[in-house]
């Protein structure tokens, strides 16, 4: 079959599979890192042991995700060399160095302090521990910054020119701070945060529904709720801003996102399609429900468009994406989830103000808790959909308007890629099932509320000095030197 002997198609499938699978894990660690900073900070401030126990309980999910995130992240980096060698050579000047910045600024920080965050509770004093938790969160989120800068540059490659097939940087900072970078970094930052918040909220809701430690999980539920008040609406705003930028810089992507086959000229209103069956061969929508005149309101908050929306038919066939249906529905899925989560936040806050979320009464909110439980995985689906829009919508370019995906692929036999792709599919399926299994076991087991709280023990075990025994040194780290 043609598909199995096409290195380009197979390499794209492999990159898509490994990227879609990889992003599942860092989404939670970057977002949850911030949550862990909040609960540990609350513990240090209020001295309420519940917050300490929250930090310990949720960090179990952190570490479960972190290991897989690291393990699945390494294939991402090496794939640029193995499967996309011409791309690596062409963009190494800029793109490669950003990958290097990510490793040195973000990964090393996170990796070095994670050990202290997870295992160092008794080994360093609370201030240093708190600092480690903060640095882990900073490290995790810095990698969002660098990866999104690198990817934004692939969308809006500024700061240099193509010379003999290579991108030569004229202005390094213009390339780093390309038109997309700020919105993209922010949108992804809030995406990881929102996803993590709804995962924590969903798991908390499960305990509340099952009447296990309701008072304990009402705490995490409310922390999450308070954070979503800011996060959920702001994320919709950032999404809108990203859409505006796509309209400005990537007309072919916007046309595919909205399944617009014909150009809508400036100065006129245009219809917005809610549901459609795009037909790439016939270059039209086979079926379509539209809202008249809505496109201008959606893009620019006004009836008449000030910029034209170019139709797919008016872009050369080899310069526009062809998976229109995928892009169109991925985009709608993301938006639907974004609004759904914001509405859920609104309804829940309403119940909060009505006093229905007190530790004693929260278990009666059965339907609300069920919806929160159901909403736990939605953030992931929105993130994946968004990335599909972003990267499938960029096709047929690997670097928009400059380098074609088809020219980016290594000179290797398709059978190699087919083999590695199959191996990834099998191994990742196994990992996915195993993680869900172990994750749900952590949930079923519940928090260990009997954990000793650091700094509150009255009687400490006598220090055993027999040689070769591991003796935890209880003194603050400065005193140990």
């Amino acid at each position: 079959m043609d598909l199995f002997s096409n290195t380009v198609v197979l390499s794209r499938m492999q990159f898509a599979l490994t990227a879609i699978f990889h992003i599942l894990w860092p989404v939670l660690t970057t977002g949850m890192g911030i949550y862990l900073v909040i609960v540990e900070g609350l513990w240090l401030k209020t001295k309420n042991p519940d917050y300490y126990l929250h930090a310990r309980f949720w960090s179990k999910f952190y570490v479960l995700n972190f290991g897989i995130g690291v393990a699945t992240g390494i294939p991402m980096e090496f794939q640029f060399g193995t499967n996309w060698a011409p791309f690596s050579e062409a963009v190494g000047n800029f793109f490669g160095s950003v990958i290097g910045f990510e490793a040195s600024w973000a990964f090393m920080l996170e990796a070095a302090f994670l050990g202290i965050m997870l295992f160092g509770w008794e080994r360093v004093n609370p201030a240093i521990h708190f600092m480690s938790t903060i640095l882990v969160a900073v490290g995790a989120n810095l990698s969002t910054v660098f990866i999104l800068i690198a990817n934004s540059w692939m969308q809006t490659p500024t700061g240099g020119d193509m010379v003999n097939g290579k991108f030569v940087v004229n202005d390094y900072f213009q390339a780093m701070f390309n038109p997309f970078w700020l919105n993209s970094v922010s949108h992804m930052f809030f995406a990881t945060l929102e996803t993590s918040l709804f995962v924590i909220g969903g798991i908390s809701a499960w305990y509340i529904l099952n009447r296990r430690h309701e008072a304990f999980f009402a705490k995490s539920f409310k922390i999450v709720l308070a954070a979503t008040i800011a996060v959920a609406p702001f994320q919709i705003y950032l999404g809108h801003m990203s859409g505006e930028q796509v309209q400005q810089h990537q007309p072919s992507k916007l046309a595919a996102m909205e399944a617009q086959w014909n150009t809508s000229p400036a100065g006129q209103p245009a219809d917005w399609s809610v549901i459609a069956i795009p037909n790439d061969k016939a270059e039209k929508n086979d079926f379509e429900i539209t809202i008249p005149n809505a496109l201008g309101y959606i893009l620019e908050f006004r009836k008449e468009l000030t910029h034209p929306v170019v139709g797919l038919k008016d872009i050369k066939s080899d310069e526009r994406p062809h998976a229109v249906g995928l892009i169109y529905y991925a985009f709608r899925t993301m938006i639907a989830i974004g609004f759904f989560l914001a509405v859920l936040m609104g309804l829940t806050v309403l119940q909060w103000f009505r006093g229905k979320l007190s530790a004693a009464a929260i278990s009666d909110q059965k339907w609300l808790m069920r919806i929160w439980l159901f909403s736990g995985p939605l953030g992931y689906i929105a993130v994946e959909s968004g990335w599909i829009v972003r990267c499938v919508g960029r096709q047929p370019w690997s670097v928009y308007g400059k380098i074609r995906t088809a020219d980016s692929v290594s000179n290797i036999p398709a059978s190699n890629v087919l083999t590695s792709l199959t191996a990834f599919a099998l191994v990742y399926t196994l990992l996915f099932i195993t993680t869900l299994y172990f994750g749900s076991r952590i949930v079923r087991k519940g928090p260990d509320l009997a954990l000793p709280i650091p700094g509150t023990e009255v009687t400490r075990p006598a220090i055993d000095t027999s040689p070769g025994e591991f003796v935890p040194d209880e003194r603050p780290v400065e005193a140990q030197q």
Partner: protein
Amino acid sequence: METLQYFLPQCWFVILGLFLLLYVMLDGFDLGVGILSLTSSDEERRGILMTSLSNIWDANETWLVLMGGSLFGAFPLAYGTILSALYIPIFLMVFGFVFRGVAFEFREQANRKFFWNIAFGVGSFAAALGQGFALGAVLSGINVDKTGHFIGGTWDWLTWQSVLVALTLIQGYVLIGSTYLVWKTSGELQDIHYGTAKLAAWTTLIGAIFITVSTPIFYESTRTRLFDPPLAYVFATIPFIGVLLIAQLLRSLNRKEDRAPFVWTILLFVFTFLSLGLIVFPYIIPTQITIYEASADASSLVIMIILIGFLIPVMVFYNVYQYIVFRGKVSGESYGE
């Protein structure tokens, strides 16, 4: 400007060498402990072995990620050519990492630990094997055209030389892993690893002798380089210093010293690495493409020195601090909850 075109790639050759050396030492003992875990029939011993790594394995692996990213940025041509030429060894390593990486957490969660024990041990072995093949293949030459693009076949990397290098590297990892465990454990466990360290020291020595002898015989380019004065005098000392270091290592093992074996092994790694660097320089794809031909633009190299190079002391500091926090011997399955 002329000088910069030589100086900057040379800087990055040295920095990449440093990253690779740090990686090979740090993840070397990490992978070595993983390989050693395959020889353990005792669940408690395996638990201690994995605990001794639980807080540092990801930091150790990050040196490779850093090396990869820096190679991508500093020598993009080499990054694409070497990795696509070594498709199979690289993915062998990558899948090895996947299995051993997830094994840490999954093993702890699982009731039946058997599968994850195997995943950890075999994953570590596969990663080391892939690295050995990759190193061997790079040293024995990659088939490229004049512009430095790979034109060879899928299985080019598999030669008797790369098998020799791979086997020796695995011995080296087992050696440094054993001496790390000598340092971090006590009692019976420590005794076992005095034994494995001694054995690995001998097998590493044998492998090193084979490589040292065979390389100048079978590679003309290396031969001319090795016997070309004045560097020839430097190269002539290499075998002697190497043997001396191994002798010191064996002595410290016989005396059952705690830390000295690890230190001697580290010195052995540093020394081997320096010699290797001298032989390879100035090639990034030996003996075809030099660092000057493969390097990124000067502007990129400068900004990378600022944003990565200046951060090296800071990164080393994080790691050292972490070793200070977790110093002492490991005994139980947990690292002092």
